[in-house]
C-alpha cells in the first residue's frame, strides 16, 4: 500500500500542474502572499495596530527610492504615519480571512439549498425561484443593500469589533445562489445514475443518500467555483469597504486602505493608494488564473449563467 503522499506524487493532477508554468507561477505567488499575510505579526517591520509606535510626524513619507523616503519605511507611510508595507500585510490578512470565510459560508448555504432542491422535488421550485431572483440582482447590489441596512440599523458604535464576522455574513448571504445552482445542476445529473438507485434499493435513508452518496460526487464543480468565488468575495469586500460599509480604517483591509489613500492622491501621495491596489489586483488575479487552471483540469459541466 503506497502512502497518500506517494500516490499524490504520481498523480496526473500534479503532473499536469507542473507542466503548466502559468499555474505554477500563480501558485507560488499566491503561497508567498498568503504566508506573508499570516506571518505578518512576525515579519512586518512595524505594528500598525499599536498606536504607541505610530508617529504622526512620519505621515505621508514617500517610498524609499524617491526623494524624502527613509529605509525605515520601505514603501512609505500613510496619512497617519503607519508603515505602508506592514499595514498592507495586515490588511491582506483581513481580506483573505474575509474572502475565505465568506466562501465557506456561501458554500455551506449553497450546498444545503442545492442538495435539498435537487433531491426533493417539492422544494425545488421555491428555492430556485429565490436563487434566481437574488442572482438577477447583482451580488454587489445585494451586498451593498444588506451592508447599508446593517449600518443604519446598528450605527457605527462598536462596529469595528464585529466588522469581520459581519462582512463575512453579508457577503455569504449575497452570493450563495451561485453555489446552489451549481450543486443543484450536478445533483440532478447524479441522481439518475445507477449507484443512487442501488443505494435506494438497499433501503438507505434519503439524507444518507444525499450526504454520503450524491454530495461527494458534486464536489468538483464546487471546487471550481470556490476558487473564483474567493476572488469575488475579496473584491466585494473591497467594494464594500470603499463605500464605507466594510472594514473601518482602524482595522483596515486592502479595500479600506485604498479608500483611505484616495483623498491623498490629489496631493501627489500616490503610494498610499497604488500599493494596496496593486497588491489587491495581484491577489485576485492569481486566484482567478488558478481558478481557470482548476476549471480546465477538472472540466466539469458548470452551470452556465
Amino acid at each position, binding site marked *: 500500500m503506497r502512502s497518500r503522499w506517494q500516490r499524490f506524487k504520481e498523480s496526473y493532477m500534479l503532473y499536469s500542474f507542473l507542466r503548466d508554468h502559468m499555474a505554477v507561477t500563480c501558485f507560488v505567488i499566491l503561497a508567498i502572499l498568503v504566508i506573508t499575510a499570516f506571518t505578518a505579526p512576525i515579519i512586518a517591520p512595524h505594528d500598525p495596530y499599536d498606536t504607541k509606535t505610530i508617529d504622526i510626524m512620519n505621515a505621508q513619507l514617500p517610498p524609499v527610492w524617491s526623494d524624502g523616503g527613509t529605509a525605515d519605511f520601505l514603501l512609505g507611510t500613510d496619512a497617519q504615519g503607519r508603515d505602508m508595507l506592514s499595514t498592507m500585510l495586515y490588511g491582506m490578512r483581513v481580506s483573505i480571512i474575509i474572502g475565505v470565510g465568506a466562501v465557506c459560508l456561501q458554500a455551506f448555504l449553497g450546498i444545503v439549498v442545492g442538495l435539498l432542491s435537487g433531491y426533493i422535488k417539492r422544494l425545488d421550485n421555491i428555492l430556485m425561484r429565490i436563487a434566481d431572483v437574488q442572482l438577477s*440582482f447583482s451580488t454587489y447590489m445585494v451586498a451593498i443593500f444588506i451592508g447599508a441596512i446593517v449600518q443604519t440599523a446598528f450605527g457605527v458604535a462598536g462596529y469595528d469589533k464585529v466588522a469581520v464576522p459581519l462582512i463575512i455574513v453579508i457577503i455569504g448571504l449575497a452570493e450563495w445562489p451561485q453555489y446552489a445552482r451549481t450543486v443543484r445542476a450536478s445533483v440532478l445529473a447524479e441522481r439518475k445514475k445507477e449507484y443512487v438507485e442501488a443505494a435506494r434499493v438497499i433501503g438507505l435513508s434519503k439524507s444518507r443518500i444525499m450526504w454520503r452518496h450524491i454530495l461527494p460526487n458534486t464536489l468538483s464543480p464546487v471546487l471550481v467555483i470556490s476558487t473564483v468565488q474567493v476572488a469575488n468575495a475579496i*473584491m466585494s469586500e473591497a467594494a464594500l469597504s470603499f463605500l*464605507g460599509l466594510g472594514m473601518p480604517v482602524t482595522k483596515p483591509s486592502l479595500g479600506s486602505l485604498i479608500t483611505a489613500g484616495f483623498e491623498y492622491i490629489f496631493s501627489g501621495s*500616490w503610494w498610499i493608494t497604488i500599493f494596496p491596489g496593486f497588491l489587491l489586483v495581484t491577489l485576485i488575479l492569481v486566484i482567478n488564473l488558478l481558478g481557470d487552471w482548476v476549471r480546465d483540469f477538472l472540466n466539469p459541466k458548470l452551470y452556465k449563467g
Partner: protein
Amino acid sequence: MFAFTVKRILQAVVVMLIISFIGFAIKHNFGDPVRDLVGQRVTATERAEIRDRLGLNDPFPVQYARFLRDALHGDLGQSYFFKKPATEVIIKKAPATLELVFCAAFIIVVLSIPLGIYSAIRPKSLFSRFVMGGSIVGVSMPVFLTAILLIYIFSVELHWLPSYGRGETVLLFGWWDSGLFTVDGLLHLVMPSIALSSIMLPLFIRLIRSEMMEVLETEYVKFAWAKGIKPWRVWLVHAFKNTLLPVITVGGVQLGIMVAFTILTETVFQWQGMGSMFIESVERSDTSLMVAYLVFVGIVFVLVNTFVDIIYGLVNPTVRVAGRQ
C-alpha cells in the same frame, strides 16, 4: 407563449411585492419620521399627536397597505434630508446615471464586438492573446481601482481630464439635465464611462469569443466554407449572427447589473447621480430615500429581467416548453 408571458409577469409582481415589503420593513423599523419632521422643542404629547395623525400607530399591515397604495401612485415618501418627495429627488438624479450607463454601454458594444470576433477567428494570434490576457486582468480589477488609476494618470499627473462632477450641463425638455451636448460635459463623461465599462468589457469579450468559437465549429459554418463563400461573409453573416442571441440575453441582464456598479463609479467621481445619492442617504441615515432607491432599482431590475426573459421566450421556444415542466 401567452401562458409563459403571464407567468413571468406574475412572477415579476411577486418579486416586486417582496422587495417593497423588505423596503417597508426597513423603513418601519429604522426610521423615525417624527424626529426628522419636528425640532427638539416639540413636547412628547405633541409628538404623539403627530404620530397619530401620520398614522404611525396603525398596525403594520395597515401601514404596509398604505405604503403600497402610495407607491403605486408614484409616492415613495419624503426624503428626510432633502425635505422633498423621494421620487422627485430620484428622478432629478436619474439622468446623470442613465447617461453614464448609456455611454459605458456604448463603449462596451463598440469595443467588445470587434475584439470578441477577432479573438474567436484568430485565437492563436498575438493580438488575441493580448486581448485575452488583458481581459483577465480587467476581470480582476475592482471598478473603483480602475477609476482611481484613471484619475491619477489623467487628472493628477497629465491634467488632461477633469476628475470629478458632471461639468457644464444643459437642460433638455425642461427636466433632463444633460451633459451630452457640451464639450465640458463630454470631457467629464470620458473617465467615468471608461471606468464603468471596464468591469463588463472583459466579460463581454470573453462571452462573444466563446460563443463565436462554438458556432464556428458547427456543421453549417463548415458547409458555408465548403461552398466557397468569402471569409468575412462566413464570419459576420453566418457565424456572428448566431452568436448574437445568447450575447443579447446575457447582455440585457448585465446592463441591469451595471446599475450596481454606478454606485461605485459615482462615488469615486462625485458624479451627481442616483448611486452617490444612495450612499449619501446611507451616511445621513435617510432611510426614506434609501428605501425609495431600493424600490426604484428593484423595479428597474425586474422590468429588465422580465423583458429579456419574454424576448428570449419569443425567440427560443425551448425555454417556454422547459419552463412549463
